[in-house]
Every structure is written in structure tokens, then in C-alpha cells.
């Protein structure tokens, strides 16, 4: 499969021009109350409660209905939502949250610390993906009074880790609708969520739409502005772009449109296409090496593969200005943890790649082929598919024959993380504001077989294990940041996986929207201040 470079160049030029289009500012306008905001919902989930499932597909709906203890503000710093203030004991084993008074659930019952206790112990600690890891050492949540929740940990919990994880992993559910009602996962409330948020759930027609309406008793004064939010289920990306143009959809989040449609809409003054408001959802494209193949157990081969890929060329021609060269497991948008020195970077150098392969003993055989391998691209996005083809062609140039094996989501996870039936895999690593949430598990040894997005490469490094363990319980913020610097440098030196490209999700939204994209996880946030101009 050959890529046509000219077509790709044209696409990227179009994307570049759309980025240069400045974001408009509307400081003088008076917010308008009312209106229906329609949202593109590309992949339906099995349930909508964000206390049980941490994924953008749930936040895009559940995040408007339920709220979390803290969210991130415009500068990416934690800001209280259901919690007003917090304090950590010096030993890091006790963290106390003071809750917001006068908040009620959509069914009229008051929100109290008992809700936080139940959600933390029964949902975050037992069910929520990434929550189970984050709250592994949570022993109890005490509730001395209805507005105080005291989190007790067996090992020190860094406050800055908890506060950066809670915007995603800190949604609270109503205890009175779950306790004693059988299996939490099967509770019908999960598909008709009840929260404290600015919008109340109205209806979910599977395969068609979800509707939520204004919560008249919302605790923020004069909020929200919108009357209703309607999520339209549109699985076909091209059809979603057409519906945006026809005015049936106002907003397509999380790179829901094709790269070419995004570029086209970006040039249309009726829409704004941008990465703004997605800084909290950074991801890196990865190349994962299977150490069970003797070739990849040799570090020279891993480095040779990195040197064989012209990443700036790929970005410029296929991804445009929405992507940049990745420097390591912690993306550059992470102001809190991005290290000054990322360690070795492996620039494009085909000769060096060939030399390293020769040194490792993999000399070209008949037809110039050194060895053959199977590459599994994850089916999450078109950039991964393009990158897989790019890897195939680039490695052919240095004498490595690549067979691309395409599967769907379930098949990919099974083959890579459970069956280990791959030589190279390429997908995304999602960075979730703190490396301890979902990044270090890609490197820490001892991950149970079958756990997706974890170290299943058959690679063990006591040095990195120690850094990861130390950082996870280090309560001093500066020391923690320094440890994660060591972690990045070690990861880039040993290269069990490579993170060559850094990307942020793309948003397409109507130019009529105001107060949009104003926080780093805006697509997931509650939209209490969003409004639509006439």
C-alpha cells in the first residue's frame, strides 16, 4: 500500500492554513440564555456514569450531568467543584476535603460526604478504570460531618497527584440510588444518570440520541445558559461532517471528523477547528517492541528502528500542524512534569540505523532483507493507520520487511496485551495530567497479563521500577517532578517503547458558540458557562 505524497501534502497545507485562522474573542457580548446545543456522539458506550468508567466517550455526556470534586481551570490548575478546599497531612496519608454546601442531586436529595465516601470506596476503588490503581492504598473515607470527607491512605498519597487525577477520576454518584440496589455495574441509573451538574438527564434512545436539559436548581448562580444539549449518534465520520454543514450538529469533539474534513471545515468561517480546550487530553503515538523477539531484545535494533523513521517528514506531510515531534512519555503540554532534559532523541539517520543493525548481527540476506516482522496498528484513529504504513515503508529502506496486521479494538487488545502475538505494535498512549495515572504502567514490570495499555513487552528494568515506585509515594512536589525527569531519561535510553509523535485531540465547533474550549479538558467539562449566540 503506497501513500500518495502529493495528496497528503495538500491535506497538510490545508490544515496548516486553518490553524493560522485566529480564535475570535467576544469579550463585549452579553451571554444569551436558551438554545439547544447539538453534539456529535461517535461511539456509544455501554453506560454513562463517569464514576464507573474513565473515558472521553462517557465524559462527553456524563460530565455535564455529574460533577467531580475538582476540575482543572483555564491554566490547568486544580479548582474546586464539589469540593471547596482540601488539605493534606504532612505524612501524606490523610487528605481532607471540605465539600460545597447547599448542593442537591437532580432528584432533590442533598449532596453530602456520605456520597463521596460511597463513590470512593465502592466505585473508584473497586470498578473505575485507573481509579482502582490510583486508590489501591485507600483504606477508608471518614465522614466526621456531612461536608467533610477524610481520605485515609495506607501509603503516602501525593496531593498533587490526587488533585490532577480527580478531574477525570473523581466524579461523584448519588449513594441513595446505588447502595443496596444490587450490582453497581447493572444499575439502571448508569444509563439515566443522576448528578449535581448543570444539566439533567432526559432521555437516551440507543443508536439515536441522548437529551439533557437545564438544571434549574444548579448551585452556580445564573448557570447554565443552554436550555438543552442533544447528543446525536453518528457513527460515520463523513456523515458527521455533512451534518455539521447542514447545521444539525454544532460540535464534534475528540478528533471525531476525518483529517480532510477537519481541514475543510477549518477554512469555513461558520466553524472553528482547533486543538484548544484539549490540552488535558494529550496523547503520544507509540511504537511498542516485543522483547520475546530476539531482535528487539537487542537495544541496537530498537534504536536502529527509531533512527530509520523520518518523523518530521511524516508529521509535516500527514498530520499537519496538529501534531509535533514527541520527546518522551511525558508530553510537552504537561507544565507540571515536563522535564528540561528528556534524554536521547534518535533523529532520522538511515546510515546509522543500517550500521546499528549490522553491529547487532542482522546483516542483509537475500534480496537485502535482514528480518521480517508483524506490525499491529491499533484501530483508534486514521493517524495510526497512516503511521503503520509509514513504518512499513521506512523499515523496508533499511532491510526490515514489515507485515501489517489490522484488527478491531477488542482483537488488538487481546493480541497485544494478552496473547503477546505481535512483534511491533503502534497505538496511542493517553497522558492523564499526572504520569502516575496511566503512564508509568507502560514501563513498570510485574503487570498482570492481559491488562491493556501496560508493560506487556517482557521487559524488566529494576532501575525504572524503583524510580516509578519512589515517585508514586513522594509527597514533595519538586522531588516528584525531578524523579519523573529521571523516569523519562531512563525510558528514552532503554527504549522499551518509543513515543515519537505528540498530538492533541482536534475540536470542530460552530462559530456561534461562546465560552467554549476555555479549559484543558473542555470537551469533558460541565459546560455550565457555554452559550450560543444568535
Amino acid at each position: 500500500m503506497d501513500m500518495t505524497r502529493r495528496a497528503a501534502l495538500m491535506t497538510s497545507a490545508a490544515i496548516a492554513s486553518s490553524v493560522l485562522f485566529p480564535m475570535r474573542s467576544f469579550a463585549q457580548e452579553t451571554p444569551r440564555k436558551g438554545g439547544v446545543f447539538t453534539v456529535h456522539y461517535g461511539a456509544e458506550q455501554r453506560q454513562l456514569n463517569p464514576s464507573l468508567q474513565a473515558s472521553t466517550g462517557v465524559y462527553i455526556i456524563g460530565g455535564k450531568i455529574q460533577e467531580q470534586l475538582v476540575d482543572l481551570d483555564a491554566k490547568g490548575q486544580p479548582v474546586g467543584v464539589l469540593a471547596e478546599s482540601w488539605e493534606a497531612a504532612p505524612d501524606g496519608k490523610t487528605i481532607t476535603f471540605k465539600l460545597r454546601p447547599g448542593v442537591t442531586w437532580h432528584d432533590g436529595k442533598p449532596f453530602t460526604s456520605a456520597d463521596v465516601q460511597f463513590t470512593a470506596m465502592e466505585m473508584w476503588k473497586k470498578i473505575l478504570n485507573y481509579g482502582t490503581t490510583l486508590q489501591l492504598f485507600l483504606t477508608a473515607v471518614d465522614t466526621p460531618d456531612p461536608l467533610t470527607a477524610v481520605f485515609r491512605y495506607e501509603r503516602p498519597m501525593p496531593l498533587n497527584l490526587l488533585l490532577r487525577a480527580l478531574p477525570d477520576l473523581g466524579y461523584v454518584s448519588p449513594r441513595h440510588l446505588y447502595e443496596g440496589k444490587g450490582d453497581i455495574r447493572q444499575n439502571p441509573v448508569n444509563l439515566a444518570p443522576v448528578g449535581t451538574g448543570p444539566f439533567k438527564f432526559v432521555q437516551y434512545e440507543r443508536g439515536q440520541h441522548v437529551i439533557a436539559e437545564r438544571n434549574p436548581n444548579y448551585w452556580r448562580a445564573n448557570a447554565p445558559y443552554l436550555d438543552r444539549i442533544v447528543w446525536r449518534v453518528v457513527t460515520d465520520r463523513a456523515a458527521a461532517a455533512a451534518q455539521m454543514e447542514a447545521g444539525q450538529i454544532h460540535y464534534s469533539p475528540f478528533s471525531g471528523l476525518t483529517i480532510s474534513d477537519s481541514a475543510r471545515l477549518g477554512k469555513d468561517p461558520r466553524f472553528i477547528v482547533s486543538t484548544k480546550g484539549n490540552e488535558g487530553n494529550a496523547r503520544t503515538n507509540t511504537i511498542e517492541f516485543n522483547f520475546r523477539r530476539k531482535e528487539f531484545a537487542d537495544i541496537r535494533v530498537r534504536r536502529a528502528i527509531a533512527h530509520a523513521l523520518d518523523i518530521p517528514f511524516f508529521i509535516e506531510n500527514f498530520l499537519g500542524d496538529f501534531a509535533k515531534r514527541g520527546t518522551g512519555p511525558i508530553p510537552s503540554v504537561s507544565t507540571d512534569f515536563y522535564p528540561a532534559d528528556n534524554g536521547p532523541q534518535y533523529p532520522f539517520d538511515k546510515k546509522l540505523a543500517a550500521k546499528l543493525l549490522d553491529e547487532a548481527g542482522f546483516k542483509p540476506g537475500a534480496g537485502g532483507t535482514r528480518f521480517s516482522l508483524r506490525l499491529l496498528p491499533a484501530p483508534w484513529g486514521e493517524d495510526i493507520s497512516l503511521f503503520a504504513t509509514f513504518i512499513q515503508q521506512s523499515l523496508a529502506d533499511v532491510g526490515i520487511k514489515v507485515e501489517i496486521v489490522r484488527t478491531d479494538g477488542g482483537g488488538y487488545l487481546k493480541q497485544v496485551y494478552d496473547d503477546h502475538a505481535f512483534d511491533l505494535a503502534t497505538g496511542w498512549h493517553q497522558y492523564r495530567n499526572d504520569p502516575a495515572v496511566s503512564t508509568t504502567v507502560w514501563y513498570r514490570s510485574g503487570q498482570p497479563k492481559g491488562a491493556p495499555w501496560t508493560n506487556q513487552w517482557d521487559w524488566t528494568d529494576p532501575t525504572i521500577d524503583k524510580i516509578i515506585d519512589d515517585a508514586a509515594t513522594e509527597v514533595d512536589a519538586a522531588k516528584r517532578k525531578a524523579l519523573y525527569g529521571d523516569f523519562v531519561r531512563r525510558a528514552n535510553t532503554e527504549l522499551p517503547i518509543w513515543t515519537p509523535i505528540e498530538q492533541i485531540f482536534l475540536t470542530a465547533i460552530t462559530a456561534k458558540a461562546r465560552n467554549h474550549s476555555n479549559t484543558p479538558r473542555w470537551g469533558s467539562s460541565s459546560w455550565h458557562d457555554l452559550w450560543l449566540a444568535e
Partner: protein
Amino acid sequence: MRVLSLAGRRLAASIPTLFLILIGVFLLLQLAPGDTVDALMAQMGGGDAATAKQLREFYGLDLSVWAQLGNYLWRLVRLDLGFSAIYGKPVATVIAERLPATILLMTASLSFAFFFGLILGVVAARGVNKWPDTLISTLGLTFYAMPTFWFGLMAIVVFSIYLQWLPAGGFEDITVSYTGLRRTLDIALHLVLPTLTLGLFYMAIYLRIMRGSMLEVLNLDFVRTARSKGMDETRVVVRHVLRNALLPMVTLIGLQAGTMLGGSVVVESVFSLPGLGRLAYESVIQRDLNTLLGIVFVSALLVIAVNFIVDLLYARLDPRITTGS
């Protein structure tokens, strides 16, 4: 009565077929790597191994393949289609929710295709090798060759974006809530483009078949007899030729009703319709075995029913089939 016993025998014969199909689909899906828990993890963006184990026990995936198959068939005998992993409710309910949209779209496009295919086929056959025939045949070939997803998207671009006459997708307008007649009209408007997109393809097939079969019948002896009696051409065509030429069309509709009942994934996706096709596709991606088998089961039942009706129609159109001569 004879036709009824014939159909009864057919129904009885189709039960083993139905079981074989279900077992086949079940085993086929075992070949795909990953199960519904892997698919769920992919959707969630992560999860730990202990949770995955719990979920596998919950969905009964920790049993052997044969035990799972046995359980499924035993439930089926008791007419229980099981529980859907993605939807968290009984498969029968999930399918019942999707059935109206599918049947509406299928009936509309099949009627459209049958009606216009018939008329155009007759017109083409009567003016064979003259300009109406050439025009109709060329159009038919174009619709047949055009990919449905492209045609659907182009229809949206023209009628929804530029002309703004029709909605670009969805089953009904949800930003306003209509009731009664206004709602019916709204749904009808939403179905115009999908019906055309799906119908034009099938119409192209019908008109080719109709044209061919008309031409064949027109050359038969009894038509010459009718003409020699001095009957006018319109009466010959309507009374004598059409009825005989319809037989292959009826056969085809029986076959295609089955295909269309499975839904059209492409048309449903492009127009965001909540039909069985998309449900089946999603069930495969999510490895929701119960739902997929449920759809196969219901589709197979409907195909059997449609074929039964087709058998009855045969007898009506051609009495020779009933008398068995």
C-alpha cells in the same frame, strides 16, 4: 390446501437449517481474537486484570466454548435470546427497539424499487433497442454501479447542505418534539434520502430482470395467439405478459427481503438510522455474541416468513404451481 402442506414442510425443514446457521455464526465469532470484555476495555481506554476477570465471570466467558454454546442453544429452545452485553438488557428488547426503523426503511425502499423497477422494465421492454430502452438501461447501470455510501453522501451534500430541503440524517427531529401527524411527516421526510439511496440500487436490478423477462414472455406462442385474436397491445401486455413476467420478480423480492432485513450497514451509518444493520455491526465489533445471534435468529425467521408468502404468491400468479402440473 396443497400449497399449505408444501409450506408447512418447508417450515419444518428450515428448523435444522436455523440451528446450523446459529452454531456456525457462534463458532465463526470464536475465531475472532478478543471477547466482549476486551472490546469493553478498548472502549474504556484501560482497566485492570482483576476487573477483567470479574467481568468475564459475569458474562459467562470463563466457561469453555462448548459449554457456552450448549447454554445458548438450551436457552434458545426455551425461546430466550439471552442478555445483551453492550446494552445491558434482554436481546429481544434490543432487537424490538431496532426493528421498526429497519422494517420501515426496508418496506419503503423495496416498494419503491419494485414499483419503479416494474414500470421502467415494462417501458424499456416495449421500446426495446429504441431510445427509451437505451436511456433506462443506462440509468439502471449507473445506479447499480454507484457505491451506496457515495450516493448517500452526495445526496446529503445536494439536498441537505445546498438546497436544504431535507434533513441530513437521523430518524426524526429531536431538537423539537412533534406528535401525531406532524411526527409521521417528520419521520417520512427523514426517510426520503435513505429510501432513495437504498431503493435506487435495487430498482436497477428489478428493471433489468423485468425487462429481460418481459422480452422473453413477449415472444411466447400464447402472446402471438392473443395478438392474432385482435387484442390491443395494452391489453396484451397487462393481461397476458405482465402476470407471467412477474414470476422472477417475486422470486427476487423473496431473496432480497432477507438481505435487506439484515439491514444496510452503509445506509444506516451514513444517515444515522437506528437499524438492525448497525446493531449487527456493533455487536461484531463489541463481540456481543448474544445480540448478534439474536439478530441472525430474527432475520432467519423473517426470511422464512417472507419465503412462505412468496410461495403463496406463486400459486396466485401461476395456478399451475398449485395443481402441481
